[in-house]
């Protein structure tokens, strides 16, 4: 049940998703990945991708224009 962080601040649209996808492969089931983003487009496509993969997803705006996507690896 480890928690990992991925700093994708300042990265434009496909990059946060691609990095999250890559990082997820290193995680074990039950681990948590927190992706930090400030690109509004990633706020849509990262959770959408993670939900489609069947993971548990949570999106939190921690300040204006700065989000954390919390993904629990379930499979």
């Amino acid at each position, binding site marked *: 049940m480890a*928690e990992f962080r991925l700093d994708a601040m300042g990265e434009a649209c*496909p990059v946060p998703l691609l990095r999250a996808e890559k990082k997820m492969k290193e995680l074990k089931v039950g681990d948590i990945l*927190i992706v930090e983003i400030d690109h509004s487009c990633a706020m849509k*496509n990262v959770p959408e991708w993670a939900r*489609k993969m069947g993971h548990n997803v949570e*999106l939190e705006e921690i*300040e204006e*224009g700065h989000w954390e996507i919390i993904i629990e690896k379930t499979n």
Partner: protein
Amino acid sequence: MSSSQTTLRTQPRTRPTRQKRNQVGYGLAVIAACAVIGILLGGIKAPLAIKWLFGIAFGFVLQRSRFCFTASLRDPVLTGSTSITRAVIIAFILATIGFSALQIGPYLAGQTVPGNINPVGIHTAVGATMFGIGMVIAGGCASGTLMRMGEGFLLQWLVIIFFVAGSLLGAFHFGWWETHFIASSPNVFLPQVLGYPLAFFGQLVLLGLLYLLALRWEYRKL
């Protein structure tokens, strides 16, 4: 949307969450500024105010809906997601109906058909390829870049500088393309080639098929 009780986090946030400022005041100020500028523009020339209003409405919808032409073409390849692709196809269907409503009158009356009906040829493919590569690297097409500039994503401010530079460069050697390719390319208006009913319904059917294809792409390739 998420409360601290139900969070997936294993440990509580170490950094305190900064108190969010109330933005209603800013919103009202922006609406007031939009109205004032709209009235001023309307005083100069009425169509200017209409363009201003459409521009704002378009930007608002673009921002709220996360509508993105770049993602619509990039995501199917990159992630297999076609939700935005399907949104763009629906927009094309609506645009087809809307433009036809505007064009059918002048067309049947034998007048000049309104709209940008430009010659199609090899230059279209070259330009589309260059634009496609550029927009994926830049993280947005023209409207997406403008929308994200407004959101405050600084990378896009850099992008717009090179967008302008590239457009100037394009305008600079447009003459070369004009003489070599555009002048000899046909100006195709489908209703003239296929007749109005076939062009209109054919385009709708084709877009509908693309929609189904996109749906199939997303749910077969996970």
